[in-house]
């Protein structure tokens, strides 16, 4: 089970540096061999994805510039294989529904070991 899970790349998108580091620290604790890229805005994320497509992505919603859900939609349109987990403090129903419609997982902040676990499950897909 671990064999097809090694060496994956993860893109973390969040305007909060602390948030990015919390996610990174929690993910690397479980998968120390993964490569992690970071972006502070939706636009930066889209640009990074064009250069190199990650396997997985975590996405915040409220960021300066483009909304995370819109960035996620764009990324998924160009690269439908990317698995996205939306991590946000914005927990309203409309937002959760939109995330689900995109095929992304929605996880409410704060980022905890448990919520990271949910994201990792979504990334691995059904076993």
């Amino acid at each position, binding site marked *: 089970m671990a064999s097809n899970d090694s060496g994956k790349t993860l893109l973390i998108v969040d305007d*909060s*540096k*602390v*948030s990015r*580091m*919390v996610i990174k*620290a*929690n993910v690397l604790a479980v998968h120390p061999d993964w490569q992690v890229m970071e972006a502070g805005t939706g636009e930066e994320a889209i640009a990074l994805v064009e250069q190199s497509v990650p396997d997985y992505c975590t996405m915040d919603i*409220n960021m300066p510039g483009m909304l995370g859900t819109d960035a996620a939609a764009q990324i998924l349109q160009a690269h439908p294989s990317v698995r996205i987990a939306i991590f*946000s*403090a*914005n*927990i*309203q*129903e*409309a937002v959760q529904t939109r995330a689900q419609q995109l095929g992304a997982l929605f996880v*409410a*902040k*704060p980022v905890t070991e448990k919520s990271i676990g949910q994201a990792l499950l979504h990334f691995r897909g059904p076993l």
Partner: protein
Amino acid sequence: MSILNEIERDALTEIFNVGAGRAAQSLSEIVGDEVRLSVPSVEVLRSGAIDEQVLPRTRGRFATVSQNFDGPFDAEAVLLFTEDRALSIVRDMMGSQMSLDELAEFEREAMCELGNIILNACLSAMADMLEISLNSSLPQYLVSSPDDISARLASAQGDESYVLVLHIDLVIEKHQTDGHLIFLLSSSSLHALVEHVQRYLGKIGLA
């Protein structure tokens, strides 16, 4: 002088944004429409410095909702809006097209509840993320002139007092309002808060 470094400020901003998300959800259920609430910035100031930053020279008065809380640190939390913005928030929350006169009748109650929702959401986010427990008083609503507020802030905790100032951005029924959330604390409370933030950062390998 900066009491908080950049990472600590980022951590607090993140904590308050989690609170804002929870408050926005509660408010959207009351209003029946999407509500957006965010905390774009957090800073620590000496209480004297608050005037130019937070109390712009408006002729109008300010609507404030305050709660006193204690736990590992004590503070008075005050949510501030200009009075006319408070009235239009109340109108948006109540959803009917009442005149401003009729709204004034409900202003105190509705603002108390709005303030309580936002303040409690921030306190609960602090409790969850910093792993602490806080007690709070019930909300109090007061409309004051800028001078009264200055005086209140100055006398609050004595000389060695600080103010944690959050700029907040609220959108209800497609109307955008900004306001401030201020935490008045003594220097020992501020240090206790900073210690807890550092502990939180330490846990995730950042401090």
